[in-house]
């Protein structure tokens, strides 16, 4: 499936925030594509754009070759049912007053296919088993507060997959899960991806998670994609100064690998007023005069894409 030229404008009174500013990327069927960035990068917004939770201000979002915002109502519903989202916070993304089994079953109510209540329950229980919440009958009737964080996240995953979607967006799926449980959830996602032949978009600020889980990755900064390519290429030979700085800054759980860090000064600027030209130029160690004037384009260098005048 593809997305091409997406632009999203948010209005805040009189000021416009370009959360996602003219990005183009596509996700290959069957792959896990990572959207990596810090706060203000636009990764969450982009994820939601691809799943039709937000409508772009301009641009096209295509799913399986079709422009999703140009469809008839029932076609739109059909497309919607093939997409799903796994949310970040397992506690607040579940309805505290609804049984977890019912929440999973609920996902089957609003699609184009009609299920009876009995069928919904059977499907929900099967999904609960698949995500490791066994015995499913017992778990079906439990409420979110009776489960641990990791178990709740499994419910969120079950709810996303019960409609048998082909495309899943995972928004920081392990960021709010206990550290000792993260590997379980990551492994679960990888297993389910194989079992259901899923295509995934993984949004994360944690580069180590992105490296572990993703095949390809787009690095985002302030609403733009600055580097994109396979995980091996981008993480081993980062070309953009921002990617380099980001990789350098990540703390490594290995005292042997302690390094002297070159951290760019300053912080991410306010997205309401992004810097002119290349958005990273005020903090970039190799910025030249052209960088404050002209925005660099995403072009192919050494096998992957980068948006830098000096790459």
């Amino acid at each position, binding site marked *: 499936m593809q997305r091409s030229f997406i632009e999203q404008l948010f209005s805040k009174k009189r000021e416009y925030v370009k959360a996602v500013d003219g990005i183009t990327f596509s996700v290959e069927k069957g792959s896990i594509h990572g959207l990596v960035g810090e706060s203000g990068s636009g990764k969450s917004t982009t994820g939601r754009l691809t799943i039709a939770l937000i409508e772009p201000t301009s641009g096209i979002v295509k799913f399986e070759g079709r422009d999703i915002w140009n469809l008839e109502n029932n076609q739109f519903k059909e497309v919607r049912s093939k997409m799903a989202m796994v949310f970040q916070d397992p506690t607040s993304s579940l309805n505290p007053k609804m049984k977890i089994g019912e929440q999973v079953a609920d996902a089957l109510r609003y*699609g184009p296919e009609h299920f009876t209540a009995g069928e919904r329950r059977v499907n929900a229980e099967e999904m609960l088993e698949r995500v490791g919440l066994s015995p499913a009958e017992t778990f079906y009737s439990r409420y979110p507060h009776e489960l641990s964080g990791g178990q709740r996240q499994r419910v969120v995953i079950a709810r996303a997959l019960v409609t048998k979607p082909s495309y899943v967006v995972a928004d920081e799926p392990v960021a709010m899960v206990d550290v000792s449980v993260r590997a379980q959830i990551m492994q679960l996602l990888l297993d389910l991806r194989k079992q259901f032949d899923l295509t995934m978009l993984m949004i994360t600020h944690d580069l180590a998670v992105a490296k572990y889980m993703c095949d390809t990755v787009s690095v985002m900064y302030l609403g733009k994609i600055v580097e994109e390519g396979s995980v091996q290429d981008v993480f081993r030979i980062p070309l953009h100064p921002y990617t380099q700085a980001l990789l350098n800054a990540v703390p490594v759980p290995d005292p042997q690998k302690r390094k002297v860090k070159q951290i760019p000064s300053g912080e991410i600027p306010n997205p309401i007023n992004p810097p002119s030209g290349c958005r990273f130029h005020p903090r970039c160690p190799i910025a030249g005069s052209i960088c404050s004037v002209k925005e660099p384009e995403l072009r192919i260098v050494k096998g992957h894409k980068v948006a830098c005048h000096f790459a």
Partner: protein
Amino acid sequence: MKKTGQDNLFSISGILFRPLKSAVRRGNGRNFIIVGLAIISFITAMSILAPYISPHNPTALDIGPPNSPPSKQFPMGTDLYGRDVLSRIIWGGRFILLVAVTAVVICMTIGIPIGLLAPYAGGYVDRIVSLVMDSIYAFPSLVLAIMIVSIFGPSVVNDALAIAVVYVPTYFRVIRSQVLTIKELPYIEAAKSIGANRLAILFRYIWPNVLASVVVIATINFADSILTTAGLDFIGLGLPVTLPDWGIDLTYGRQGLASGFWWDIFFSGTMIVLSALGFSLVSEGMAERTNPKLR
């Protein structure tokens, strides 16, 4: 919340019962609810079973010597007309409770849908409704109640309406603020992501989470209605006919108080306080239970 008679009452009892309160509070509201429900059940049972358990006819005059103190024959004494106070106490809650129930039902029927729909619709609908509600909210409840009852005459429905009108804004405000908060929570976005339509989100995802606060408001509503109705009856405006009633007994009892006949006013006053307290305890207990969980 406006300073109603109930608030003042609760502040006083709060000071007196502070050590008790902190001991009870450790049960995290559960004890409050249990005690409150016990009181409510007792008073409701008493009112329903009045015809069967009342020893005498509460309106019968000169059953005993007037203004006689509590004795074995008349455990709560007699009032200035020689009526048995105990019987009047047993019967005295019916009108008040009936008005309270009617008022709460009216409030909920109007307040809940508006409270849910206005913020969910948003935009100027929400703003206009809020404006109307805020203006009603500014009215002093007892004064408005007196106005309505003096114009339209006393009856269960009119009394209930008078109280309800002033209370709907409270329901509206509380529900609205809850809806506004919940609307932004991730599980609502999750509901949207699975394709739920607006109505489904409202009734299956938002309403169940608002319910707890509604119970809190409803019980406060009850307590306040009891006190307002008793107040109206005390002035002589609330009751349509000469029913036995705690509120009106306050009037009868007041005349005797100067002469040292304390029992009439004491027992009727206590019953009013007790019933309001019962509902207040339930509402406090519910509030305690919902708040920590919200955290």
